[in-house]
C-alpha cells in the first residue's frame, strides 16, 4: 500500500475528541448511501431519522426516556472498560434488575405504601449486582473469561424472565397473555414532565454520572482503576488489588444495569413482559466508547444513541423502513469510531508507489509484507538468509 501508518510520538489529545465527531459524520454519509441503496431518498430518510423525532416536546421527553437506561449502564460500564474489565452482560443484569424489582412490585401489589417504590429500586439494584457477581466470582476465583460468562448469563436471564411471565407471574386476568399484572400506582415511577413519559429515572442517571465523575477524577479508587487498566504491572507493584478492581467494576455495572431494568419496567413499561429492552445493555457498550469513557461524554453519547432508537421508530412509521436499520446504524457508528480512533496513536503517511522494493534484503529495512527476498519459504531458504546477502552489498 502506498499509505502507511506511523506512530505518533505521543497520543493526540485533539483526535481523542475529534474522532467521535468524525465517526458520526462518516456514519451519516454511509447511512445516506445505505438509504439510497434501499431506494429511499437519503435526505428524507435522514430527516425522518434525526429531525422528525425531535420536532415536538413529546419527542424530546422520549429522548430522555430512551437515554436513561443507556446512560445508567454506559457510565458504569465505562468505569470497567477503563480498568480493563469486560462486562458484556449488562443486558442480563438489566433483566435481573427488572425481575427482582418487578417481583417486589407484584408481591406488594395490594399495598400502596410510599416505601414500595424505594424497595423495588433497591431490589432492582441488588438483583443486577447479584447477577454481575457471578462472572466476577468466576473471574477472580477460577480465572474464567468474564466476556463469555457474562454473555451466557444474559441468555439465561432472558429465559428466566420468559419463564416467570409465562408461568407464575402471569396476569390472572390477562387472557393468558405472557404478561404480568400492570403495576399499582405505588409501584410506578413518577413522571417528572407532565403529559410525557419522562420519569424520575433520568435524574437518577445524571446523578450516577456525576458521582462516577467525582469517583474517577477525585478518589483513590478512581486512580487505582485507571492504573490497573492502563498499566496492570504498575498497579500490581503499587499493591492495587486486581480482584478488588474486578469486583468493584462488576458490582457497579451490575447495580447500575439493575437500576436501569427496574426503572424501565416501573416507568415507561409499567409491567413485566417477555422482552423489556431493545438491547440497551449492548448499545451501552457503544455509548461508553463513543463518550470516551468519560461521564460527560457518555451523557452526550447516550442521548445520541437514544435518538437512533427514536429515529428507527419514526423511519419505520413514515418511510416504512425496517426497525433493524437502528442496529445497522449503531454497529456502523462503533466501526467508524474504532477506525477513527487509530488517528489518536497513529498518523497516515503517504509513502508513494515503488519505494520499498529497493530495500529488499537490506538489514532490517523489511517492512511488513515488503521484505520478499527475506521470507523463508523452506529450510534451505531460511538458512541462506543467515548468510551475507549479496543484494545488500
Amino acid at each position, binding site marked *: 500500500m502506498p499509505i502507511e501508518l506511523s506512530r505518533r510520538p505521543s497520543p493526540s489529545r485533539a483526535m481523542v475528541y475529534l474522532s467521535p465527531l468524525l465517526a458520526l459524520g462518516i456514519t451519516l454519509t454511509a447511512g445516506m448511501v445505505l438509504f439510497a441503496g434501499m431506494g429511499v431518498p437519503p435526505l428524507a430518510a435522514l430527516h425522518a431519522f434525526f429531525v422528525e423525532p425531535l420536532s415536538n416536546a413529546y419527542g424530546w421527553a422520549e429522548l430522555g426516556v430512551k437515554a436513561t437506561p443507556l446512560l445508567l449502564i454506559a457510565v458504569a460500564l465505562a468505569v470497567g472498560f477503563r480498568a480493563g474489565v469486560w462486562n458484556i452482560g449488562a443486558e442480563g443484569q438489566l433483566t435481573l434488575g427488572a425481575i427482582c424489582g418487578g417481583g417486589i412490585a407484584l408481591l406488594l401489589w395490594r399495598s400502596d405504601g410510599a416505601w414500595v417504590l424505594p424497595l423495588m429500586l433497591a431490589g432492582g439494584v441488588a438483583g443486577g449486582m447479584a447477577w454481575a457477581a457471578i462472572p466476577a466470582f468466576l473471574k477472580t476465583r477460577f*480465572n474464567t473469561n468474564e466476556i463469555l460468562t457474562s454473555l451466557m448469563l444474559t441468555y439465561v436471564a432472558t429465559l428466566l424472565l420468559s419463564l416467570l411471565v409465562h408461568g407464575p407471574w402471569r396476569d390472572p386476568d390477562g387472557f393468558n397473555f405472557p404478561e404480568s399484572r400492570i403495576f399499582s400506582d405505588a409501584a410506578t415511577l413518577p413522571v417528572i414532565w407532565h403529559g410525557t413519559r419522562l420519569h424520575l429515572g433520568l435524574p437518577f442517571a445524571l446523578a450516577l454520572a456525576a458521582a462516577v465523575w467525582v469517583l474517577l477524577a477525585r478518589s483513590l479508587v478512581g486512580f487505582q482503576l485507571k492504573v490497573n487498566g492502563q498499566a496492570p504491572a504498575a498497579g500490581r507493584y503499587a499493591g492495587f488489588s486486581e480482584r478488588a478492581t474486578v469486583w468493584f467494576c462488576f458490582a457497579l455495572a451490575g447495580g447500575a444495569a439493575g437500576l436501569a431494568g427496574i426503572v424501565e419496567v416501573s416507568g415507561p413499561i409499567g409491567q413485566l413482559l417477555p422482552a423489556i429492552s431493545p438491547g440497551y445493555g449492548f448499545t451501552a457498550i457503544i455509548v461508553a466508547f463513543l463518550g470516551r469513557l468519560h461521564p460527560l461524554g457518555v451523557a452526550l453519547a447516550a442521548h445520541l444513541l437514544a435518538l437512533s432508537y427514536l429515529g428507527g421508530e419514526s423511519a419505520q412509521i413514515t418511510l416504512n423502513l425496517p426497525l433493524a436499520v437502528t442496529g445497522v446504524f449503531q*454497529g456502523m457508528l462503533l466501526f467508524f469510531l474504532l477506525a477513527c480512533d487509530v488517528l489518536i496513536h497513529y498518523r497516515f503517511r503517504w509513502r508513494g508507489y515503488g519505494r520499498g522494493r529497493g530495500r529488499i534484503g537490506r538489514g532490517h529495512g523489511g517492512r*511488513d509484507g515488503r521484505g520478499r527476498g527475506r521470507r523463508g519459504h523452506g529450510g534451505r531458504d531460511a538458512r541462506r538468509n543467515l548468510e551475507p546477502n549479496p543484494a545488500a552489498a
Partner: protein
Amino acid sequence: MDISGILIAALLTIITAATPLLFAALGELVAEKSGVLNLGVEGMILLGAVCGFAAVVFTGNAAAGIVAGALGGAALASVFALLALGLQASQVATGLALTIFGVGLSALLGQDLVGIAYAGLPKIALPVLSKLPVVGQLLFNHDILVYLSWALLAAVVWFLSRTRAGLVLRAVGDSHAVAHALGYSVLRIRLFATLFGGACAGLAGAYLSLAYSPLWIENMSAGRGWIALALVVFATWRPWRVLVGAYLFGGITIAQLHAQALGVGVPAQVMSMLPYLATIAVLVLISRDRGKIKRNAPACIGKAFHPSS
C-alpha cells in the same frame, strides 16, 4: 421403532446440532492460533445464515447458498481485519462491534426472507458405506455440510500440525515479533486466518438456515457464536477436542428437546438454559487451571501488531 432405532435417531440429531458449532469453533480456532481473537463469531454466523438462505431463495441452487454463506461470513471478517489488523483497533471492541453490526445487518437483509420455506439440503447417502448396519445410517447419510465439517476438521488438524504453513501460522500466534524478524508477514497471515474463521462461521450460519432449521429468522443463531468461542477455550486450542466439545454441546441441545418430548416436568425455558449453563460450567472447569490455559493459549492472542514497533 425399536430401541436401536430411537438411539440412532437421537445420535443423528446430535450430529445436526453439533455441526454449526464445529464449523464456527474450528474457524475461530485457526484465527486464534494466529493470534486473532475475533469475538464477532455470532455476527458472522448470522450474516452467513442470511446470505446463504437468500442465495438459495434467489437461485434455487443449494451450492450457491453454501458458497454465499461462506462469503458472507468472510466479508464481515474482512471488516474485522481492516479495523483490528489494518488500523490497530482493539480486537475485543472490534469483535463486539462485528456482532452488533452483524445482528442488525442480517435482520435488515433478511426482512423479506422471513416466512419463506425451504426443503433443506438434500441428504447424500454414500454408496456402499451407507448400507452398513447402524454405522451406515449414523455416519454416511448426511447432507453435504456435515461431511464438509468432518473434512474441515481433518484438514485443520493436518494443516496445523503437519504443514509448514501451519507451523508459520502458529509461530505468528505465539510470537509475532519473532515471526516478523524471520521475515514473515504477520498481518497478511493473520488476515488469511481471520478470513478463514469468517468463512467457517458463515458455513455454520448456512448450515443453520439451509439444513438445521431450515428457514431464516432474526437472531436465529441464539448465542451459538459465543458457545463456539467458549468451545475453543474448552478444547484448549486443539482441533480434535473441538470435535468432542461440539458433539457434547450438540448432545445437550438435543437432550433438552427430547426431555420436552418425553414430558419431563421441567419448564421449556429451564431446559433451554442448559447449553448456556453448560458453557459456563466447562469454562470454569478448564480455566481454573491457570497453567493449563497459559501453556495452551497462543501467547500473542488478542495483541495488536504493528511492523514498526
